[in-house]
């Protein structure tokens, strides 16, 4: 009643924005620590690298975010990336003519994987967690059956793409930003975007509202896997070969970034701006720890602490 009716004011003034703000404040703190402890940290070269690195995680995380916004989850993204790297390296095999066809093939493969996920969830009513967990294991198995050691070769064009610049920025980072802008627009100004929030907000209400929830689910899962396969291609560009190590535990990093970015695991709340914050925070933190020569064993510890700190900040805000 009255008690509750006052909260919107508070929320409008600080509510969701604080959640997102918290991430950016944490990023600011990390940058400050970095700047104070190493002069290399804020160098143009390092920032260029950090943003390019963030784009790798970012591309996949955007897809994960879409799925999570519908109250789903996709545990298979790491395996999709791994499979894409291997398949594209083997098929491309250093040939320039093969480049474009292979890109289409692996992105088509991504769409197919997403379609299968949504199919099982929609038609057989199996939980997304289960479906994509199975898919994680299966796709990983297929990928490793192709090779357990680096295999294949990217074309020269793909290899060169990694170092392309647009002004001071990496082309890969620009690509990421374009994706961000597109998804931001899509979530706000299209029916599909509205339906995503509606489905995540309450599936039953969505169904009773006449929303084509199955189609929405096909959409988000296919986009998610498509973005994962795009990330796989970026990795091919970076490595030049199909390295089966790529994509390990990536699904956890994407979920972490989405959560740190303020998107609710239960769906219906969150968005792009926070998610970029989550991606940047994780990437900058990893970069900083390396710059500071923190032993690898402690890196996990510190990353975990930051996750808890970020999420604790949200809880504070919600109380």
């Amino acid at each position: 009643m009255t008690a509750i009716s006052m909260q919107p004011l508070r929320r409008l003034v600080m509510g969701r924005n604080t959640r997102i703000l918290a991430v950016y404040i944490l990023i600011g703190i990390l940058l400050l620590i970095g700047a104070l402890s190493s002069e290399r940290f804020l160098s143009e070269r390092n920032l260029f690298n950090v943003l390019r690195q963030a784009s790798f995680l970012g591309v996949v995380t955007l897809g994960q975010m879409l799925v999570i916004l519908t109250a789903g989850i996709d545990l298979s993204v790491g395996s999709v990336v791994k499979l894409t790297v291997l398949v594209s390296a083997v098929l491309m095999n250093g040939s320039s003519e093969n480049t474009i066809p292979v890109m289409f093939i692996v992105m088509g493969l991504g769409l197919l994987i997403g379609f299968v996920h949504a199919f099982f969830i929609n038609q057989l009513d199996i939980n997304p967690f289960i479906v994509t967990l199975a898919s994680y294991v299966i796709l990983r198995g297929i990928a490793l059956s192709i090779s357990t050691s680096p295999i294949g070769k990217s074309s020269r064009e793909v290899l060169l793409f990694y170092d392309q610049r647009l002004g001071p920025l990496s082309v890969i980072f620009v690509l990421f930003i374009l994706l961000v802008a597109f998804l931001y627009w899509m979530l706000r100004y299209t029916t599909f975007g509205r339906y995503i929030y509606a489905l995540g907000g309450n599936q039953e209400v969505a169904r009773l509202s006449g929303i084509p929830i199955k189609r929405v689910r096909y959409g988000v899962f296919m986009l998610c896997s498509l973005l994962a396969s795009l990330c796989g291609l970026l990795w091919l560009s970076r490595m030049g070969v199909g390295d089966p190590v790529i994509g390990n535990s990536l699904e956890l990093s994407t979920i972490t970034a989405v959560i740190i970015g303020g998107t609710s695991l239960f769906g219906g709340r969150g968005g792009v701006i926070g998610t970029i914050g989550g991606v940047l925070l994780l990437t900058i933190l990893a970069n900083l720890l390396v710059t500071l020569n923190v032993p690898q064993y402690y890196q996990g510890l510190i990353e975990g602490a930051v996750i808890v700190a970020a999420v604790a900040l949200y809880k504070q805000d919600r109380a």
Partner: protein
Amino acid sequence: MTDTILEMRHISKAFAGVQALRDVSFACQKGEVHALVGENGAGKSTLMKILAGVHQADSGEIVYKGTTYRGFKPREALDKGISVIYQELALSPYLTVAENIFLGREPRYRGGIIKTQQLRQQAAAVLKRLGVPDIPLDIPVSELTVARQQMVEIAKALSRNADLIVMDEPSAILAGHELDQLFVTIESLKQQGVTIVYISHRLDEVFRVANQVTVLKDGEVVSSQPISQLNRAELVRLMVGRSMDEIYPKSKHQHGEPALVVDGILTDHLSEKVSFTLNKGETLGIAGMVGSGRTELARAIFGADKLTAGSIQIGGKKIVPRSPRHAIRSGIALVPEDRKGQGLFTALPIRNNISISILKLLSHLGIIDRKRENAVVEQSRRSLSINMANADLEVQFLSGGNQQKVVLAKWLETRPAVIILDEPTRGVDVGAKFEIYQIMRQLNDTGVAILMISSELPEVLGMSDRILVMRDGAVAGSFEGGAATEQAIIERATSQEAVV
């Protein structure tokens, strides 16, 4: 008047500058049933939340059993014997009845092992004291009816030796004989010296159960007196601040050709095939107890449950509704009974809720035309007089009445030929109720056919041109509006053997 158990003195409370309670004083005598009434937003819940320690008052004090407190912490209030039973029951669905009653306070051995036998005995004793010894101790509460779950909540309060139990709209989830059972329980609690604060929107209940009534309006007490000194009209006037001579607007009785013909439909949740005809501009009321198949009938017509037989005709076209989507496209709308679970995206803005079912119409190639969307929302706000600061507010922050108007707006925007209203005025205050009735009449006047499901018999009698009564998943009788009486409907709605 000597045995005052609770006195809340000069309580004021503001939220971010808006005064929710202004110098409110409220006193309860031991063993009385004290009704706390008022429109949504009047401050009833805030006052009770201060008592329960959920909120702290800005000023004022609480005198409880002779001791003066500045306020309570939630745990403190419980320990001192104050229990609040909220509308949303706080039970753990998969734990048993006995486990729920003593949740967190189980009798234990050293080392934390629960003394199961003792737990069951104590639980049985509490249920006996409550007058419902037949509730089984060992089944998960999710298998009980809502009415019985509520009894378990009350048992939980009793097991804490509560002297003061606040019931926040307990009847909102009950119907018919379940309500009678609740009143019997309240009466027995009263005999045992337990004091009850009874919050309700339904005035007939207040008159039935309370000794004393306190009316809140806009955060202030406008009246506190024995219920015997008031009649219904006076109480309404106190709550609303204006008199309401005519609660139910008159029907014009101008009915056209059939809008909806239901032809022998059956689902897994109905026991017999249902057939009826609903004409343009007509309101057909569906009465019956909770669980009699009313909601299931609505869901069948709306395509939310799978039909196993039959079909419907709408606007002369025969269809078998496959999904809500299909039904909506055919011109049917359903305003569901459970606003939060089925009607609204509570965490989304008002705007998104109103436009969600017509986004297709407001967009081109999937891109939403925000101008047109805003125009539609603004139009709805004005025509339904939805009270909101702006359309970006999440609907969960609106009062019950305004939430219901948002659901109505969403469905009216689909321009339905037939609109099904399942408990259209549940959890809605008197003022908003009146407005909803007027909207229904306006819809009838423009030819929209209404199927109204309601547990409130005065509402069914007041609004319906015709009435269907349901029982045990089948139609048990029908009346022309003028010919029905409460008694006749109740007789049809209840079978010989009482269903528990």
